[in-house]
């Protein structure tokens, strides 16, 4: 066993164990996998590559207390210098007047935001930079250089907290000597309060949504800070103020902790791109008291052409020489630094290797001054990587050694003046409620299809092509039909046996696609409402990714289906036991009961068709009814109630009317009514009561017309659609109005 100066055990077996645990913990946070190739979300946006996966090196990077003392001062000075630069570039422009910065270069940069010129005087915002991050690297001989400044919407504090939380679970007692990071959350809260003169402002984290590469961090930080996580469609500007659209109406927002680039904030600004922003948000910023952290315009410091000028310009402006100098050349880390970068021990692909590393330090500005986080995001590089480009990410936690007296962190933080401003349980963005609704529907539907698949997979294969069609297969078809384009699968053959085999194949293939779709929807919807779900739920969802992949190639893999059903049960257990009851939960639960009622009615219709089929013999009918019960997870309930052969009357009673069977249509309708009342959707309770009345009137006999059951399904669908369109309509996305083209009448000379 070797112990190196970091104090961490470098025994390969221990490291491998730690790595495995770290990987699992990251997956639980939704951070360890790539969410890709998921279907369209309920609000119409498709989900592309959402996050790069990263692994966390079990070996931390250690910085001594003395060395951090220097870094702390260097980062603080750099942030202060950049703040002065922004003041000048958007204010007096002394640097331009004195010829230090060529105005043509400045005005050529798309990152120089014209709307921010002179804005500091117009808006009530105390500073340009509230948060700042800088990537640094150290040479073998111990000199630190800055490689990139992050001034626009820096990311990483959340990742640092997340990585530390994960590593903290596997690290030994040596972690006790590293300075803690969690006090940074208080500093951050204070920084956002301090952006604006108003007292006790309402802050929201403004994210680009699940498509944003750093979405996991946005959601982690929002949860940790106790702020709403909001996206463009959640926000609206009225009367020069910014408002959050919640289920309860509009709620004023005073500070946006923006995680979007400044050039995408307001489509009304010249030269903006995309429609992820909020129209008018800059107007609210300038004349409605809204503060942005960081301020609009700070991205100019990241312009690759201009960045070369900042060190000199900053020195001209402040008279101080920067401690951390920026190296802006392209190339590998060694060529950028001009001499080899230091190599550090890294556990990579089950081997101990020495690699270069880039560290991202974070600084936060409050009225008290600038605080540098005593830690960083380490990123392990391959020797040939350009450190400014994203690389397949191996993260490294960074430990700053504490002097014994510093073990209790001494952050200059005031006690909070005002208690948390908002009850996040009742203040639910409409879009989040919509996603929870979609998530619950997809979960319930996945379960129904998976259960039916499981029954089909378990039926004897030699029966195929003989006698009347398999009831389970028909039910599966009914449960999956409308979602999947069957034409894509191909037409059946003329030959009888082949035709039956092909029909089975067709249904199975489309069931596989349907499962893929619904489980994918669960993942897509859940990713955007992670702050409502527990960490354990995150772990279940992470595992669903693997199961979904297994089923894609073999939809009738019995083992994979059983795993899926277990995971879905875990998910629904967590949903009922670990999610706080509030509007969001009631919407989700409504969706769940609605799908369940539809599934029970679909099963009942299949049961009636089977029982009334003159081509089936009694044994065949009994097997068919059993399949229906099994697919509805009601077979055990049936056996407990009726110690007899399966009879259609008893089946219908159990599926339709038995309130004690939690999977019956009746019990689901009762749940729908409860949820509708909790939401306050009183228009809907009458409609639901009528459906309930007609459901109760359905005869429990073989003479029931399946069409009667199907018409109940149709009415349920329209009731749910009415709820969705009146209460949940996610605000549609903005579209650009084309400007009037300049077309002139031609030469008139």
């Amino acid at each position, binding site marked *: 066993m070797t112990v190196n100066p970091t104090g961490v055990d470098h025994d390969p077996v221990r490291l491998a164990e730690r790595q495995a645990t770290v990987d699992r913990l990251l997956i639980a946070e939704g951070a360890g996998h790539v969410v890709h190739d998921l279907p369209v979300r309920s609000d119409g946006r498709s989900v592309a590559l959402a996050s790069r996966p990263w692994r966390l090196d079990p070996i931390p990077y250690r910085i001594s207390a003395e060395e951090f003392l220097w870094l702390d001062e260097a980062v603080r000075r750099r942030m202060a210098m950049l703040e002065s630069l922004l003041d000048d570039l958007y204010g007096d422009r002394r640097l331009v007047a004195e010829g230090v910065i060529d105005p043509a270069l400045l*005005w050529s940069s798309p990152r120089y935001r014209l709307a921010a010129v002179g804005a500091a005087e117009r808006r009530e915002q105390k500073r340009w930079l509230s948060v700042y991050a800088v990537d640094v690297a150290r040479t073998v001989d111990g000199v630190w250089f800055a490689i990139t400044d992050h001034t626009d919407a820096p990311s990483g504090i959340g990742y640092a907290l997340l990585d530390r939380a994960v590593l903290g679970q596997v690290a030994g007692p040596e972690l006790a000597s590293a300075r803690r990071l969690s006090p940074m959350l208080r500093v951050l809260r204070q920084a956002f309060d301090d952006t604006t003169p108003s007292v006790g402002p309402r802050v929201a984290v403004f994210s680009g949504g699940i498509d944003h590469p750093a979405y996991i961090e946005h959601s982690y930080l929002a949860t940790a800070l106790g702020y709403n996580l909001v996206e463009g469609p959640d926000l609206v500007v009225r009367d020069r103020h910014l408002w959050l659209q919640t289920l309860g109406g509009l709620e004023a927002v005073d500070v946006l902790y923006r995680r979007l680039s400044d050039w995408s904030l307001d489509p009304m600004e010249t030269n903006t791109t995309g429609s992820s922003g909020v129209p008018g948000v800059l107007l609210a910023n300038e004349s409605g008291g809204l503060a942005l952290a960081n301020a609009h315009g700070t991205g100019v410091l990241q312009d690759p052409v201009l960045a070369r000028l900042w060190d000199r310009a900053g020195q001209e402006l402040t008279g101080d020489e920067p401690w951390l100098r920026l190296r802006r050349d392209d190339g590998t880390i060694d060529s950028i630094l001009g001499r080899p970068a230091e190599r550090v021990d890294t556990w990579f692909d089950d081997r101990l290797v020495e690699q270069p590393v880039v560290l991202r330090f974070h600084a936060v500005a409050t009225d008290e001054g600038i605080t540098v986080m005593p830690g960083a995001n380490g990123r392990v590089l391959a020797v040939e990587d350009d450190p400014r480009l994203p690389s397949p990410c191996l993260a490294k936690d960074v430990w700053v050694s504490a002097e014994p007296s510093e073990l209790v962190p001494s952050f200059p933080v005031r006690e909070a003046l005002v208690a948390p401003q908002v009850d996040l349980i009742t203040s639910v963005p409409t879009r989040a409620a919509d996603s929870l609704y979609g998530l619950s529907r997809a979960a319930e539907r996945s379960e129904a299809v998976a259960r039916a698949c499981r029954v089909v997979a378990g039926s004897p294969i030699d029966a195929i092509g003989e006698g009347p069609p398999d009831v389970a297969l028909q039910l599966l078809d009914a449960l999956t039909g409308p979602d999947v384009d069957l034409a894509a699968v191909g037409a059946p053959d003329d030959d009888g046996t082949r035709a039956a085999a092909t029909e089975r194949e067709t249904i199975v293939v489309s069931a596989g696609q349907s499962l893929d779709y619904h489980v994918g929807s669960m993942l897509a919807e859940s990713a955007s409402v992670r702050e409502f779900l527990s960490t354990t739920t995150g772990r279940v969802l992470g595992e669903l990714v693997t199961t979904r992949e297994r089923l894609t190639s073999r939809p009738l893999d019995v083992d994979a289906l059983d795993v899926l059903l277990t995971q879905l049960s875990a998910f629904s257990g967590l949903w009922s036991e670990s999610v706080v009851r509030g509007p969001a939960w009631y919407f989700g639960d409504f969706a769940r009961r609605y799908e369940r009622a539809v599934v029970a009615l679909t099963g009942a219709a299949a049961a009636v068709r089977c029982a009334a089929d003159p081509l089936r013999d009694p044994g065949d009918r009994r097997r068919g009814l059993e399949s229906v019960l099994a697919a509805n997870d009601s077979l055990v309930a049936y056996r407990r109630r009726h110690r007899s052969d399966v009879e259609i009357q008893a089946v219908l009673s159990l599926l339709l009317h038995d309130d004690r069977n939690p999977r019956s249509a009746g019990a689901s309708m009762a749940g729908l009514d409860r949820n509708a009342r909790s939401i306050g959707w009183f228009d809907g309770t009458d409609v639901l009561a009528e459906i309930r009345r007609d459901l109760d009137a359905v005869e429990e006999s073989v003479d029931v017309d399946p069409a009667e059951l199907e018409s109940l399904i149709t009415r349920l669908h329209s009731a749910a659609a009415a709820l969705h369109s009146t209460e949940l309509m996610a605000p549609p996305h903005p579209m650009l109005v084309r400007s009037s083209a300049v077309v*002139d009448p031609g030469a008139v000379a």
Partner: protein
Amino acid sequence: MSNDLERGTVGDRPASGPTTSYVVTHRTAYRYAVPVSDAYTMTCLLPRDRSIQRVLGASLDVRPEPNEYDDRTDVFGNRVVQVGVHRRHDEFEVVATSRVEVRPQPVPSTPLTWEDVAGRCTALQGARAIRVGPYRAVTPSSMPADGGAELDELASAVFTPGRPIVESLRALSHLIFAEFSFDPTATDWATPLDDVLRHRRGVCQDFAHLAIAACRSRGLAAAYISGYIETDPPPGEVKSIGADASHAWCSVWIPGENEAGDVGREWFDLDPTNDQVPPHRHVTVGWGRDYSDVAPVRGVVIGPNSTQSMEVSVDVRRIE
């Protein structure tokens, strides 16, 4: 106002000469196939004063009645109005009506060559560097993505060594006028300069961008001007209302004779579409680095995705 990039030209020493008055009406109407619930519109339609133009009155009519109306001055000193309509509507109309008085622009009598002007322009310091510098910027519309050689060829033909600045600009205007055809079907609101150079056709906006690009490639400061031009009816016909249109041309910085004192009248306009140097019968609305800085109307509507149709009419009427 420190944001006004051409502050000095307003009223310092008004250009002399006979004035002409115009009433301009610019109407833009949108119709949506499905009603939209929320619309935000930004306009740059109200004209501003300059040394050769005085605005006697200007107003904006918006229908439906907007919930928000914000009138301000942008970084270039242009008047921009942002309006919001936050209720269901399927038609939106904005009408700008203005009365202006214009004078002919005097031709600078400077002996400076284009090289002299470019040299002084790049060496500017102080407040003038802040005012003039932005118009040397290279923006996406004023720089071909890959047609740098073609642009250079055009600029070399015009900016020959030692040529006086005014003569150079006249040559530039004439070359574009002679070698490029006016063709409203050739380009739309966002045609890259490369296409204009390749196909040798375009509209006024493209020709203004082209002239600007040529000037900036030689170190000169050039502004994009958005405005109107008075048009004559075809012979024998009565001029029909609304037949005019928005127009675009450009203006180039030329230092005044007395650099120490006079910072007025430092800009000289050219209209390559009509080969008028300086232009006459033109009404200025505003200026910027390129079209996107002064787009007359742009905006965002929120609602179900559907089709929209737009109708624009402009009427420039001379007041006798």
